[in-house]
């Protein structure tokens, strides 16, 4: 029988490896469900890397295994192999291929990073605490306050870097639909809604709306992470951070602290609840109607009420249940 030429086998193997890699890249099921506008962007990037990685893995591991079988020492043969020391075209080829791949992946990463809103924060952005003190409605209604706030903001913002993902460059000028001030502390997340004065241990947001989180830490570094959103931002003491996103799927997702923050770091977990717009409005109304907000901070506590508990662990945020009630009423 006539021997099949090597280029034919190379072509067949190339096609098989390509098909397998493409399939793996699309069907690995390694990532959790997507629940934000950023998530598909990240997943697409990962799928591309998974496809390329699978192909490289199969080719290199295949070459290793083939060599180990095909080129093992024949029994009793103590001679050396062929003294092949190099091959310049081959070396240039396998230098160029990874170089092209990583430069391509780098550029793709930049595009994804831009679409996620990674380029907008920094430099002259708002300081979370300042915005938190000025409910959005009031500022819009009272023109002099706007000017004053802008001037004050400019002074402070010029000295303050804000890190994280902001609005996409396409919507940078838009005000967010919901702003939440997030404070990390050992071992809880506190979410404050400056528009309504609500303070909570869980994050409630409406689906399909532009949400801006202003993230800070009170004691040590924490890291705010929602795996289903594919977003993470460290909460740094003295360095405000920001995450801006649109949740795309209703549901309850974990909020995880990803940075070692002390003995009970593993227990610093809470959840983000993505409501339908109606349910979100109901939640806001119910919370505003309550003088005493309920809080489910992810920490064991014996306090009689949530407000007392909150006051206990975060005196700067809420010194007493009365103050919390006042904060709630001020927003109306």
């Amino acid at each position, binding site marked *: 029988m006539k021997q099949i030429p090597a280029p034919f086998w190379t072509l067949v193997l190339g096609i098989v490896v390509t098909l397998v890699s493409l399939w793996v890249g699309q069907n690995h099921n390694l990532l959790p469900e997507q629940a934000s506008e950023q998530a598909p962007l990240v997943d697409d990037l990962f799928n591309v890397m998974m496809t390329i990685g699978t192909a490289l893995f199969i080719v290199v591991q295949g070459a290793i295994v083939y060599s180990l079988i095909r080129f093992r020492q024949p029994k009793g043969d103590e001679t050396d192999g062929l003294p092949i*020391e190099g091959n310049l075209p081959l070396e240039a080829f396998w230098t160029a291929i990874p170089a092209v791949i990583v430069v391509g992946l*780098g550029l793709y990463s930049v595009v994804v990073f831009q679409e996620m809103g990674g380029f907008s924060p920094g430099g002259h952005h708002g300081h979370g605490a300042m915005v938190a003190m000025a409910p959005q409605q009031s500022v819009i209604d009272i023109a002099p306050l706007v000017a004053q706030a802008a001037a004050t903001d400019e002074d402070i913002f010029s000295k303050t870097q804000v890190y994280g993902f902001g609005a996409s460059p396409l919507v940078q000028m838009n005000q967010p639909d919901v702003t939440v001030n997030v404070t990390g502390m050992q071992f809880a997340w506190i979410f404050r809604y400056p528009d309504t004065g609500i303070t909570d241990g869980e994050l409630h947001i409406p689906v399909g709306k532009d949400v801006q989180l202003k993230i800070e830490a009170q004691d040590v570094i924490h890291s705010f992470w929602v795996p289903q959103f594919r977003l993470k931002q460290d909460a740094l003491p003295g360095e405000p951070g920001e995450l801006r996103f649109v949740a795309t799927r209703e549901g309850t997702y974990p909020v995880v602290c990803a940075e070692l923050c002390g003995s009970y770091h593993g227990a610093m977990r809470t959840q983000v609840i993505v409501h339908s717009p109606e349910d979100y409005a109901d939640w806001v109304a119910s919370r505003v109607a309550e003088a005493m907000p309920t809080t489910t901070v992810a920490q064991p506590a014996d306090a009689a009420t949530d407000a007392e508990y909150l006051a206990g662990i975060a005196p700067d945020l809420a010194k007493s249940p009365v103050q919390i009630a006042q904060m709630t009423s001020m927003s109306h």
Partner: protein
Amino acid sequence: MAQADISIKPTELQGGHGHPDKWKWYDYFTFNVDHKVIGIQYLVTSFLFYLVGGFMAVLMRTELATPNSDFLSPELYNAFLTNHGTIMIFLWIVPAAIGGFGNFLIPLMIGARDMAFPKLNAIAFWLNPPAGAVLAASFFLGGGAQSGWTSYPPLSEITANLPQTLWCVALIMVGTSSILGSVNFLVTIWKMRVPSMAWDQMPLFCWAMVATSVLALFATPVLAAAMVLLLFDINFGTSFFKPDAGGNVVVYQHLFWFYSHPAVYLMILPIFGIMSEVIPVHARKPIFGYKAIAYSSLTICLVGLFVWVHHMFTSGTAPWMRIFFTISTLIVAVPTGIKIFSWVATLWGGKIRYTTAMLFAVGLLSMFVFGGLSGVTLGAAPFDIHVHDTYYVVGHFHYVLYGGSVFGIYSGIYHWFPKITGRMLNEPLGKVHFVLTFIGTILTFTPMHNLGMQGMPRRVAMYDPQFAHLNQLVTVGAYILAVSVIPFYFNVIWSWMKGKEAGPNPWNAMTMEWTTDSPPIIENWEVLPVLTHGPYAYGMERSDEVGPAGEPLPASRS
């Protein structure tokens, strides 16, 4: 690359010097200045610390077999995770790979009688045991440092101050040791090669040590600075990193990672050197692409200094930095890929011996492909942000550091044990060791990637119950890894005492360390050798005969 056609021949008699023929056992516990003694001191000490760090890992994995914190207290868990990382990096891989192999092999490989600064060499080693003792003491004086091997402030400034101070002191000591050692390696390689050895005739392990030493000299002082500042913040009221007193927590991260990412290359570059020595010998072929491998080590050294910010994509990092460091991080894959392809090409067409050293080398190759590819995904900022500080990262760096560095150290031990001790390791026992290690590594570190992507953060003693099954699998893998060291330690101890005599060159290798006795005599050679063939001249026509005295040298030093 055309190797010089040179062979090994003695030229001048320089032995003697009134030294004993060989060292007694108690010489290994003294301030001995012989590079071989120091190399063995490094290796034995680091293998002891490997047991300590591994014991901590087993306890942590036992804790993580269940979602709740029910085996160790959270404080003790954090102390173990901090010291496991610290010991494994600073007292196991770095001293074993650089101090151990570097000290034992470099003078032998370049035809020198010792390192350039023997006393400095001994000082460098003797900084390590006290550093280990200080870390051990930190457990009895406050429960051990608990803020992770990264020790980010403010956590490290408010948690367990005394042990954290001791941790800083220990790191300053090992950092100083590393700097002293690096100076010594560079000067030795630069100045003390036999006159007949040109740069491009050096074994690739020497090239790897050049790159390692340069990297250590640039990066380690920055770590020392970070440690000193942190120590001052904790103890003397300064506020370099205290945000409420004008300090900045992110500055520490820059200082720390400016050293600690290159530390990954400090741990792997010598291993790359070991790979480049082991594979040609046991595949019976010249290394493929000598110059490409040598220069790629230097490229990794250079680029490796500009990738540290990829550890900080989620902290205070300006957007342009994320982009710059995404690209620079990804570029490291190119020189690394060159090495991997070159090793595979060395296997191709060889006559491969299935020795344990070769199995570990090929196992490393296999592991490193996986670890390298997951490293590329971590370089891409958008994906890194999702998996940063998760078990995906833990899985990745253990693939690189365990599947890479530890496999490389094992490979090097099986390869050079005959030279170090004069006796062979038991091969069947070695193969049991390899199989257990290979299976254990895959079982332990592969599921970690899934855990991280699905949402499990790292450094947690308690976790969401949905991750329990994969964690149990990881724990079983860790137990297999724990068991895997038993045949190895038994093999080493037994073979060192009773193993088969090795002879000077049991692998029929061509680098210069194999031209002297096993173990080498004090001052290495009776007469210094002259190279007349390259280090990887397998399958080539060559003359190993000793030429007439006074024959002109076949290759001039460049």
